[in-house]
């Protein structure tokens, strides 16, 4: 009696535990799918809207699947005044911001990673503080300054603002990247006759390159997405988000949907490119 009991319970218990485990896995999968639906369906819908013909957009109820595909909506958006130049401006500002913030920020990141110096803590606090400055606080006075110096309404002006915004993050990310490069290899290179500079260029830089490029993509995204400052600092040489924002009130729905889609495509690509680095970057830089 007792033996059969003890023999039976474990198996019964095991199968019950197994069943509970399977149900749990099933529940996790369902929850994951629900969250994925919330995150992905809006992107799907804006894509459908951007590639529907004008007639399909005016219909009600609108089809929830691509029924009447056409390039008209996107075509009209791309060929409307100011969009292509704005796209170019966005690229120019993004690339310039990336280069400037790396040139100014990476050395500071290297210093944070390699040297213990007086003022290190205040410097880091200073970086965190600047990160908390709202963009409006900077852009309104900056616009006044740029108006008086002739930088207003140029890509340079927007680049300066974006570099200032991106700089704290660039310094912190590059510091995390350089910390990950072992000091020994750099010292070994110097022992074998490299100058500190060439040791950096030949040994440290190649090892740090993947992380640094992730940081630069991040900077580019920041600049590509920034709306308010770009809209305040320019009139004619707008970036893409600035252009879309400033024409928002007067534009038909189809134009807005096409604009939304055009702004989202880069996001999908950026995240795909830096998926591997996302956790490292946010994990290490924010602490």
């Amino acid at each position, binding site marked *: 009696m007792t033996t059969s009991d003890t023999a039976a319970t474990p198996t019964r218990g095991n199968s019950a535990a197994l069943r509970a485990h399977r149900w749990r896995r099933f529940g996790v*999968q369902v929850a994951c799918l629900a969250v994925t639906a919330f995150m992905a369906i809006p992107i799907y819908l804006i894509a459908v809207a951007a590639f529907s013909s004008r007639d399909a957009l005016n219909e009600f109820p609108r089809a929830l699947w691509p029924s009447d595909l056409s390039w008209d909506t996107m075509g009209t958006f791309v060929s409307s005044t100011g969009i292509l130049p704005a796209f170019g401006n966005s690229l120019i500002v993004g690339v310039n911001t990336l280069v400037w913030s790396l040139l*100014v920020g990476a050395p500071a990141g290297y210093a944070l990673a390699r040297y213990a110096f007086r003022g290190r803590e205040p410097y880091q606090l200073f970086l965190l503080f600047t990160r908390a400055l709202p963009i409006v*606080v900077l852009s309104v006075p900056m616009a006044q300054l740029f108006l008086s110096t002739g930088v207003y309404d140029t890509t340079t002006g927007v680049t300066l603002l974006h570099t200032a915004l991106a700089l*704290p993050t660039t310094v912190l990310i590059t510091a995390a990247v350089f910390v990950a490069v072992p000091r020994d290899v750099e010292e070994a290179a110097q022992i074998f006759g490299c100058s500190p500079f060439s040791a950096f260029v030949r040994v440290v830089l190649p090892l740090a390159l993947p992380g640094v490029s992730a940081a630069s993509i991040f900077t580019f995204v920041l600049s590509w997405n920034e709306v308010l400052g770009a809209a305040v600092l320019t009139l004619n040489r707008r970036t893409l988000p600035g252009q879309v924002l400033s024409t928002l009130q007067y534009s038909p729905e189809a134009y807005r949907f096409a604009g939304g889609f055009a*702004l989202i495509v880069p996001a999908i690509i950026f*995240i795909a490119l830096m998926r591997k680095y996302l956790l490292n970057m946010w994990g290490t830089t924010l602490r």
Partner: protein
Amino acid sequence: MAATQVTEVAPRRRRIPPVVWLIAPSVLFMAALMGWPTISGLIQAFKTGDGFGFDNFARMAADPFFWPAVRNTLLLIVILIPVQFALALGMALLLRAKPKLSGLYFYIWAIPLAVSDLAAGLVWLSIFTDHGYLNSFLSHLGIDGVNWLSYDSNTSMFFAVFIAELWRATSLVLVIVVAGMQGIPKDYDEAAQVFGASYWQRLRHVTLPLLRPSLQVALILRTILAFQTFAVAQALTGRDFPVLVGETYNWYVALRNPSVASALALVILAISMITAIVYLRALRDPSDKGGKR
């Protein structure tokens, strides 16, 4: 006297440490492009026709859009952030359970991280407009649609902005929380499990306390960013659902009054700073100052 001066100057002239060369450009750059605008904004906000005063602030507060903007911004933050953190935490725990396709899930859940607030607003505009996808969906089900973005329905506009912000900004919290969870050694959780702690007990007493630093950072960052919410509301509702930054933009661009815009910007700065300080105080590690909880 002269001798001490010489000893002070000589070593500095001999060699400027490389750190200075590395750090100086960034300090100068930020002083010029962040310090200077902040100070000049401060001056402009208080400057009146003759001297300094609170005229700009008075004008700002007298604007019929100002108090609704304050209310909307604060309400959005108070309701959005708890929901957002609960959702992000849930998502991170789901990923920790290592379901199949978790890599793909993480990718899709992280996409909004790179979506600008303007784009997010436009995406949800396609869903919430009168003839948008939500009403179409309801109509397929045989339900009459709701005029979500109607100017006289503050609740449904709030709902639309809330959902759009939840969609856009939860990814940021998620990524910080997931990164934080990866830093927690598995041993703690396993040890608690060996001693018979249930899932909720482990979550409450092991995982959450260890996540505290990550949550704190995410909370501060997210709240400061939430004060800057602007283009989502702008794209969805225009000025029907005013928020603080949107009003600043409006004062500067449409009304061409940089002084009042500066005053508003200062209000936003002050609220952000106060919130950050309150958070830092409230979330201080309890081990620093005895168990307050």
